[in-house]
């Protein structure tokens, strides 16, 4: 919540100028054709033939910072599938998300502080995508939300949709754009059976209990993105792949030869509002 004053709106407008120019000269990620299907194999030699692009990251919040300031990305397509190889530095491998911890005083479980590592890829579906959600632009984007525990364990990335609107949306989150106007953020999951569910504990079993329970019957559009992330020697290596066209209405359709705007965000065991995010990128197919 920012003070909604005229001065502040002006300042925000001035600040957005470099971003607007950045959109015009956005960093392009080339989607190369692959000679074979690397599948989800991080060690696949197919990736060696592709050039990598280092994407700089910055914190989305002034009071949040990490050492993750860039992410290395390679992208390719083979047959009707697109493959993304991403690699970033992370000192710790965090695989637990919001576990309950027992509060002796209250004699009940309360939410703990641990969070999992995550990465989100976004691709514009409609509107004018901007990596900065509160830029004031309205758009609908396809979000590939890889979660080190809640999706990676299933070999997936959580396929979601992001809609930023200045009009109120049911079930949306009300935010304030940089110009002080309200923005409504809606991030529904794609159709299908969910990847996980939450659970509660009324009575003590252990000092720490998992909040989320992975479901083995996940299906539908929410499971379109296959993923494989491995943390090794202080680095995450992640491959995500999807059909160029899933045929699902809630997914972006990639067409070879065309450019799609998008962005990358990395969550280092942090809350949603605390992450490192790229500038708006161009994905050239």
């Amino acid at each position: 919540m920012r003070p909604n004053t005229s001065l502040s709106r002006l300042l925000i407008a001035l600040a957005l100028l470099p971003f607007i120019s950045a959109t015009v000269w956005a960093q392009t990620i080339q989607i190369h054709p692959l000679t074979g299907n690397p599948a989800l194999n991080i060690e696949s030699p197919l990736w060696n033939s592709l050039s990598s692009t280092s994407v700089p990251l910055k914190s989305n919040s002034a009071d949040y910072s990490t050492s993750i300031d860039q992410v290395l990305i390679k992208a390719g397509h083979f047959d009707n599938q697109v493959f993304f190889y991403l690699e970033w530095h992370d000192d710790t491998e965090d695989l637990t998300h919001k576990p309950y911890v027992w509060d002796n005083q209250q004699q009940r479980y309360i939410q703990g502080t641990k969070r999992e590592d995550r990465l989100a890829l976004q691709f514009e579906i409609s509107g004018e995508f901007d990596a900065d959600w509160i830029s004031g632009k309205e758009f609908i984007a396809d979000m590939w939300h890889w979660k080190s525990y809640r999706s990676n364990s299933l070999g997936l990335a959580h396929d979601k949709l992001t809609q930023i609107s200045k009009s109120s949306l049911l079930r949306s989150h009300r935010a304030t754009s940089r110009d002080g106007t309200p923005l409504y953020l809606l991030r529904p999951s794609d159709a299908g059976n969910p990847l996980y569910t939450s659970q509660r504990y009324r009575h003590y079993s252990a000092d720490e209990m998992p909040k989320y329970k992975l479901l083995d019957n996940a299906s539908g559009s929410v499971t379109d993105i296959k993923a494989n992330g491995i943390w090794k020697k202080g680095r995450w290596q992640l491959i995500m792949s999807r059909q160029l066209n899933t045929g699902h209405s809630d997914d972006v359709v990639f067409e070879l030869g065309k450019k799609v705007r998008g962005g990358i965000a990395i969550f280092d065991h942090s809350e949603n509002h605390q992450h490192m995010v790229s500038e708006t990128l161009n994905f050239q197919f």
Partner: protein
Amino acid sequence: MSDVPLPNKLVRLQVIAWSFFLCLTLLIIVESWYLISLNSQSSKEFNQVDQQTQQVYRDVDHMLQQRQPLEQLSNQIINSAEHFNDEFQLLILDPDYSDAGVRVLQGELQQQADKLKTISTFIAPAISDSLKENLGVLLDITAELLETPSPNDRQQLYRDTSEPLLAIISAQTLLLNQFKIENQQLSQDVFRATEQSHRSMANYAQFTHRFELSVWGVSLFALVANSLILALLFYLFRRRLVKLSDYAEAIGQQQFAPAPFSSGDITGNLAKNLEKMGGHIHQLLDLSQQEAQRANDAHAEAEQLAFYDPLTGLENRRLFYKRLEHDLSVLERHSEDSLALFYLDLDDFKQINDTLGHKAGDEVLKSMADRLRLTLREEESLARLGGDEFAILFHGSQETCANLADRILRKMQVPLTIDGQVVRFSTSIGIAIAGEDGNTTSELMSHADLALYQAKALGRNNYQYYSPDLQQRAQTRVQLTHEIDNAISGEEFTLHYQPKVNLCDRRLAGLEALIRWKHPTRGMVFPGEFIALVEDTGQILPISNWLIEQACQQIQVLQHRGRAIPISINISAKHFYTGDLVNQIRRQLDTYQIDPKLLEIEITESLLMDNMQQAIQTLETIRSIGVRTSIDDFGTGFSSMAYLKQLPLDAMKVDREFVRHLPNGLKDVAITQTIIELAHRLNLPVIAEGVETEAQLKCLEQMGCEMVQGYLFSKPAPIAELNLGPTYTCFASSQSSTV
């Protein structure tokens, strides 16, 4: 009751039965009284139950009233849950919606939780726990919702908690409905239970009343019926007891008949048992009569065996002694008749037994008994004392005693034919007179025995009265026996030897050893004075053994001097038949290492006649070891010619009785001639004994006699005093040559 005299046990039994019946009736009355009191107590308990039921009803009502707050609380929880659900949905749907309403609801829920704690004591634990759980879940979801700012997370939370929320609402609603249903059901149950209790108690009261009446009726009926049945039973029982009493009395009088009645009850069993008992008694009486008869028979048989001789049927020694004691006790001292005890035995009965067998001996004894019985009057007692000994008690004068003894002797001499063989026998009798010869049984028996011994000594087939000198002689025998014992141990016996001279060359043919007793006070005692006695007492055996040893020793001495002179010894019948004679001879021959041919055994003809077969066997054995044998005193016995030729003999000696009357006694000459000729026919040399004169010697030479011995050549003398020189000359002497 104690004043009334009881006639018998049956009446006592009836009294006991009536007492038992009265006790039974009393027991029924007590039981009825107990049931009435039980009924009264049940009525009281019924009232108590009724009061308790009412109290329960009130308690249930109170409990239902207490449930009202619970129902209210449950309604509130439902409302709160529904309200929360609405708020939750709005919060998710509307991004501008505030969560203030949720926070208010959180406060309300917390209040409801606190209220639940206060009323939970009135609630069943299951319900209370359920309410607590539901409230807890609501509070947890509320808290989590408020802690979750992200709309996506809230949506996720709603997705994951909407079902529990609806479940809570549903459960609470269900619980409320259940409360209502249970309350209604409980009220109805209590009402029905109360009604049922009333009806049951009323039915019970009615039942106990009817039961009380029925108990009285049954008791009365039982009293009357039991009285009639008992009276009938006692009548029947008494009648049967009377019959059984009569029946038992008849059995006691040994009148055995079937039981008076039969039935399966105890009286029937008693009658049956009485019948069995009567049968057993009848059998036992028969058996006892038979046993008594057997006992009488056995007693008679035992008496017969105890007092009578089974062979002859005569009284035995035991009964005879009793009779003798009785007769002695009643003996009239001054009566003219005296009581005489006759003690008899058959002469030479042993010879009859040995020659004809024991069966023939028994026949002789029976015949003797018959003859004696026929000889005596009935009042005389006749008994067989044992073996061939008989005894008679005779009452009469001394003259009639002598007549009886003569009759007996004559009667016994009549020959008896047994198995076609004529047997002749005689008897000897000793007589002792009661009073004169003794006053006791033992005295009379002993004296009669002495008289019998005297009769035997006097040649048998006669009778002798006891006299005091017989007693003296008997005492002398006893003393002599004792002295002989001393003589054996004190070496008072010695041997004298009489030469046997060959008539052809007048040379010494041998010596006959003759025993002499050097009595310390009476001087030299000759065999005729003690041989018969030592044969009776058995002392002949050590004396005879001594004689054999002395002869063998003398032969050895003579051998050492270079003289092989045969020595003959006389062997008594007792020693000859003991069986030890041969062994004794062997031992002495071995001891003194002499030529067996130098020893000669002389046996008398009468000895041979005792047991000819054994004599032949023994003589053969003696000859087999090399010892010579000769027959002594030949002609005095009745030797069978058939046996004579079988006798293993080396010489034959003519008895001095025949030699004494030679040459003038025609019969003795004939006998001696016959004996010598007989010996020669049997190839036996002849030795004549008791040759004292030249005429006798000359006669014997003419008859062909080979050897002689007698005073004509030498009287018996110690070996040292004898002339053993090459030839003998005759000595004319008038001395007897008795050995």
